């Protein structure tokens, strides 16, 4: 089989699984779960085969899908080093999360629907990874949004989940509006939406780079990867089941935005890149602060994800897309680990999610705790773990660019260590604070195995030298470039010192401040205003809510009124009414009403008079 056929098989396997589940296996949850896991394994196998088959070269394959005159939309694959890297990560992490879900969702009543959703999500994500033109990316982008909507709203009977899924979808849609306009503009500007063709055009003539196209396409990224100002959906999306949070909102879907940026990196002029860097840095710091005001374990991890996404976009904005990809991959490993660990804890504590009600988990669930610690260390950038290498590179790049960005990113590192430390000390140590935590027990094998594997990856994943040949080429390039940048070495040592200081100070500081196993949140107890301010998260949700309820709703009501009155009333009903009126008038000719005849006579006379005097016609 050629590489293209293998890739096609990889793409269609989850689709097949989803279709089978949707048609036949809705009621047979267990069977559906096995099918979905098999599909995920299939994706892994096919990806491995595909990478073997390509031998490091790029694969292109396309078929024509729609054609209107000169304009054709094709569906095709562009499989180069970047997509190979991403594909490996998505397939592998996806498989691990599927396996985890077997245990986590074992007693869920709607397992079939859940696994169907996971399969359709894998299909959509693979589509984004493999796509070769903007329109195909957009199609799968929307599919991913739909899968996210479906999966976030999995718990049908809670209002919270329904509201969160709606919010996620709508906020994404807002970003996608800019995306769509960007695609149209790009087509108009370049004459094609094919990524390679655009890249070639830009390489040949760099004046074709337009900041407007870049900014518009960036809107999609802002929506999908939860940057300012469209970040509000990500914390709420934690209402979905934990495997969903791990897969979609930590490792893959939110990373799709960054991946997309990397794919179109050639379209970005300096000005827009600078903007992205600032955007990313601000989100990194903002989310870091917000995490201190949260008590739900998943929400803390969500804000951590937001923060790390900010790092990724900062890396991209500083001109190193490869480093952004690097951080994306390592982040996928340790964030998935953290989320799955959280899931394991939640499952063990019988769906208790408030950290202030947990405690002493270390004794009750040792394997989960150890792997969780490894994930925390990776996240904080401890030397040797996966997160260190990527974060280090980002900090160096930031330092070489501007002091402000460097300072803020380092602050972010301090904050990260701080809130993760807070999480760790409160959850894992001390006495259990509630019955549920007291009766926690270690999770089953299907849940623990992925944790262990991901823990290993969180350590090993950063050693870029160990990565397979076909993957990570762009990462190596960027790292090389960074190493040879001016002032790299002194900056590197500065970062080493500050980075180590960050995690040491953060972890120990949180230990002293929050204490081990104390009752209640120390910040809340000691200075309530600060805690409340952090919890308010700069009132973004409130502002948006106000805008939607007061302003947008009024505009919508006005437009609806116009629609009903003008279009429905005047034009549609009016034209129909006009016809009816003409009909009624004409009918008066035939009903035997003498007076009607007289009026028609009069009308005829007027017409003849007009004709005769030459006024009309």
């Amino acid at each position, binding site marked *: 089989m050629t590489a293209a056929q293998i890739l096609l098989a990889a793409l269609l396997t989850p689709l097949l699984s989803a279709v089978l589940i949707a048609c036949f296996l809705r009621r047979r949850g267990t069977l559906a779960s096995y099918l979905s896991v098999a599909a995920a394994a299939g994706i892994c196998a096919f990806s491995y085969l595909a990478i073997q088959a390509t031998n490091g070269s790029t694969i292109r394959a396309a078929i024509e899908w729609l054609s209107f005159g000169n304009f054709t939309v094709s569906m095709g694959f562009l499989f180069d080093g970047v997509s190979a890297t991403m594909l490996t990560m998505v397939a592998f992490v996806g498989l691990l999360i599927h396996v985890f879900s077997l245990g986590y969702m074992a007693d869920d009543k709607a397992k079939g629907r859940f696994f169907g959703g996971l399969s359709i999500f894998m299909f959509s994500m693979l589509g984004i990874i493999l796509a070769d033109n903007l329109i195909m990316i957009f199609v799968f982008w929307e599919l991913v949004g739909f899968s996210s909507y479906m999966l976030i709203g999995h718990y049908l009977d809670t209002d919270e989940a329904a509201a969160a899924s709606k919010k996620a979808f709508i906020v994404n849609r807002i970003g996608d509006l800019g995306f769509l306009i960007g695609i149209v503009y790009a087509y108009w500007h370049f004459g094609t939406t094919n990524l390679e063709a655009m890249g070639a055009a830009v390489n040949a003539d760099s004046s074709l780079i337009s900041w407007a196209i870049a900014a518009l396409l960036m809107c999609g990224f802002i929506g999908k990867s939860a940057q300012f100002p469209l970040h509000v959906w990500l914390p709420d999306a934690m209402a979905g089941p934990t495997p969903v949070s791990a897969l979609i909102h930590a490792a893959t879907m939110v990373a799709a935005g960054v991946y997309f940026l990397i794919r179109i990196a050639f379209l970005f002029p300096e000005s827009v890149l600078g903007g992205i860097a600032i955007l990313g840095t601000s989100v990194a710091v903002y989310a870091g602060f917000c995490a201190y005001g949260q008590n739900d374990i998943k929400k803390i991890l969500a804000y951590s994800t937001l923060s790390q996404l900010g790092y990724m976009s900062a890396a991209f904005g500083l001109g190193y897309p490869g480093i952004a990809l690097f951080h994306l991959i390592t982040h996928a490993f340790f964030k998935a680990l953290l989320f799955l660990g959280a899931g394991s804890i939640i499952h063990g504590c019988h769906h208790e999610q408030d950290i202030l009600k947990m405690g002493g988990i270390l004794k009750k669930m040792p394997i989960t705790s150890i792997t969780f610690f490894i994930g925390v260390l990776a996240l904080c950038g401890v030397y040797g773990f996966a997160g260190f290498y990527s974060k280090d590179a980002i900090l160096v790049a930031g330092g070489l660019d501007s002091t402000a960005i460097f300072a803020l990113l380092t602050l972010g590192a301090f904050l990260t260590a701080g809130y993760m430390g807070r999480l760790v000390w409160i959850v894992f140590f001390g006495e259990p604070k509630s019955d549920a935590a007291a009766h926690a027990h270690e999770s089953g094998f299907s849940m623990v195995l992925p944790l262990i594997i991901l823990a290993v990856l969180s350590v090993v994943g950063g050693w870029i030298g160990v990565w397979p040949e076909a993957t990570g080429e762009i990462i190596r390039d960027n790292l090389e470039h960074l190493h040879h940048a001016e002032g790299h070495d002194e900056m590197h040592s500065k970062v080493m010192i500050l980075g180590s200081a960050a995690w040491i100070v953060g972890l120990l500081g949180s230990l002293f401040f929050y204490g081990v196993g104390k009752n209640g949140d120390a910040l809340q107890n000691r200075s309530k205003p600060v805690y409340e301010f952090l919890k308010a998260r700069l009132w973004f949700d409130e502002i948006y809510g106000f805008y939607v309820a007061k302003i947008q709703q009024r505009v919508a009501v006005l437009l609806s009124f116009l629609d009903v009155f003008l279009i429905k009333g005047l034009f549609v009903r009016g034209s129909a009414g006009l016809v009816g009126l003409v009909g009624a008038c004409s*009918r008066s000719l*035939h*009903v*035997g*009403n003498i007076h009607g005849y007289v009026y028609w006579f009069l009308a005829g006379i007027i017409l003849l008079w007009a004709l005769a005097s030459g006024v009309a016609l």
Partner: protein
Amino acid sequence: MTVGLNAFLIVAGLLFAVGLLGVTLRQNTLVIYMSLELMLNAVNLAFVAFSRYNGTMDGNLFVFFIITVAAAEVALGLAIIVALFRRRQSVMVDKLNALSH
């Protein structure tokens, strides 16, 4: 006489309009018919005025014929109304109407 052609024509026009009003307003067939005669009468007046203004006899002669035809028409019309009355026992237009609407 200083009254000009226009005055006569205005009177004729007003008579015609009143007749038209009668035709469209009244329900009684006989009154409608009388209004019709009024309209014919107005036309007669206009004809005679034009004839006098133009200095020819043709207008007058035409009025002669109009009167003749109008008389014949009235006779026949009234006979029809009588026959209708015998059928429907009414001369009101709305009750005479056999078509449903």
